[in-house]
């Protein structure tokens, strides 16, 4: 696949500049108008519009850049300057699923490095590379705010908690086989990169009520408080319930 080098420049192939067909362009304009309407100044719409472009093209294309520039009265240089700054905007065709293994320190130490090695070897691709079937783009990701579930893997930005090498290999195999895969804390299934990009552009997919409210680690302190009968003071009882000030006091 072209444009495979991880650190390359924004990949603007001739094909990616081919104009949108009429129906696609009309829908893009309709959606873009809805995005722009959310903000007091229209340039604020740029980040969601780039997500929107990815929801149609699967990455930031030349025509997508031009579309954003046209809608927001910016130059394409302005738009590509922004697009190349943020790691979620892809510079070459992305797989249907971005699988990110957290290899920031804590996850790495707890097993993220071992997971990364195993899944990278299994798929035969490295960071920011896509499998030949176009299904999986593999990434090393930074901390994704789920450290109490380390090691963490994200698939299209849904949480897969407490992973192991074999669980992650199962995950990518299931995704490649086209089976529905259920995140640990998230929607009832992992949606495609394009579908998720549309949500990030600010368009509902009706899945907000799916999944759990919180995982067991998130609830651990609350569970212990219930067991011990610990509560925050009520407004009237505050004189009686002086809080813990720490053993050192």
């Amino acid at each position, binding site marked *: 696949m072209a444009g495979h080098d991880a650190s390359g420049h924004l990949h603007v192939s001739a094909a990616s500049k081919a104009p949108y067909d009429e129906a696609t362009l009309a829908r893009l304009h309709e959606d873009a108008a809805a995005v722009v309407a959310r903000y007091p100044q229209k340039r604020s719409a740029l980040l969601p519009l780039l997500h929107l472009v990815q929801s149609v093209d699967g990455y930031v294309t030349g025509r997508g850049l031009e579309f954003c520039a046209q809608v927001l009265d910016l130059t394409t240089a302005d738009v590509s300057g922004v697009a190349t700054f943020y790691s979620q905007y892809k510079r070459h065709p992305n797989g249907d699923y971005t699988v990110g293994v957290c290899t920031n320190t804590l996850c790495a130490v707890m097993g993220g490095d071992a997971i990364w090695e195993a899944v990278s070897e299994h798929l035969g691709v490295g960071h920011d590379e896509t499998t030949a079937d176009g299904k999986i783009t593999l990434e090393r990701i930074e901390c994704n705010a789920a450290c109490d579930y380390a090691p963490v893997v994200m698939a299209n930005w849904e949480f897969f908690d407490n992973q192991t090498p074999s669980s992650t290999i199962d995950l990518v195999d299931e995704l490649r086989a086209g089976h529905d895969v259920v995140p640990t804390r998230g929607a009832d299934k992992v949606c495609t990169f394009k579908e998720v990009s549309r949500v990030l552009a600010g368009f509902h997919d009706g899945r907000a009520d799916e999944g759990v409210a919180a995982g067991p680690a998130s609830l651990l302190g609350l569970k212990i408080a219930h067991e011990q009968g610990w509560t925050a*003071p009520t407004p009237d009882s505050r004189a009686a319930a002086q809080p813990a000030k720490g*053993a050192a006091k």
Partner: protein
Amino acid sequence: MTARLTPVLTAHWDQPRAWTLAAYESTGGYAALRKALSMPAADVLAEVKSSAIRGRGGAGFPAGLKWSFMSPPDGGPRYLVVNADESEPGTCKDIPLLMANPHSVIEGAAISQYAMGSDHAFIYLRGEVVHVYRRLMRAVEEATAAGYLGTDVLGSGTTLRVTPHAGAGAYICGEETALLDSLEGRRGQPRLKPPFPGAAGLYARPTSVNNVETIASVPGILLNGADWFKSMGTEKSTGFGIFSLSGHVTNPGQFEAPLGITMRELIDLAGGIRRGHRIKFWTPGGSSTPIFTEEHLDIPLDFDSVAAAGSMLGTRALQVFDETVSVVRAVSRWTDFYAHESCGKCTPCREGTWWLKQIMERLEHGQGQPGDIGKLDDICDNILGRSFCALGDAATMPISSAIKYFREEFEAGMHTPAAELFSPDASVLFDTSEVKEAAKA
């Protein structure tokens, strides 16, 4: 026995469908907004100020004071921006909060807007948590339909709006002025201060940027009073906060407690250090705060006590590493992170983090050169206080503190790879023989 944990923000996370408006209302949700709208805005601000709540996003600046520093109303727009770009390594409290109870943030944002004379809030959520964004968008929709947001909130004639906004992957956007640039559709690079956002923030208008947890604490302060809030915590670090324990403890998780609880107490609640091991080093507030060791376990985790001991409370992101972990490997990886996330705007950070990364890498591989430790110290010295924003400063924290407590491991990096001194397999949670099997499959 006094309560060691005081669930307020986390109190209802275990309710069925906790994220919905119905669940939030059934536990008293939006009563604080009703109360606030019945009060003059100045009194709402005064109550928050009186609670002395310090910002929960890391810096610990008093939130009420921040609001009162905004330029006075001039008839033009004023904005509240809720910083939900939670990306500091180790920090994992705002994301579960928004996942389980987005309405607490929306109610807090509505009250806070009212207090500061704003009619529009943005919630800037990092883009890498799609389900949280779904919940947030849905919650805003529900709150608007129920009349808690809109042009005539609860018949008060007051306009309060909340616009969720997804970022696109950039740690630096957690820095408040970089966040504002990003929200304006630009590269997320920090702005020179002054002017501070309170004078010229979003679209150059008076703006307050506050952390998710700070804003979610506002309804409780309004409903129960500043004295209730101050009855928890310490004199100068009032109230409660979510403490996030991760790493080599038996049961990692979230613990909501009065500020001033100790790490020893928290580790005890988490079931102790991983069986058969002992603590080696830990971060009090994420990777950007100088590391601590076993000798610091009894320091009260409040802003001033942690600062007095040479670190920062930060975001209460307590990452625990046991004796199997090479401090050089850990710090080297954090250094990769800062180099990767440096926005490139200022030279000390852009160039300095790159050099720090080169040196840490060779130390990790046992290929350190004579003078490398001095060079690290020297580069840190030239970044700290000289970079445009706190990211550069942050990059130096793990390095300087690790050299202070574990200099011998850096010296060993002159000749022995970290992986030889500390087998990575020993730190991993699963059986690593599985790795070799799995990769073959």
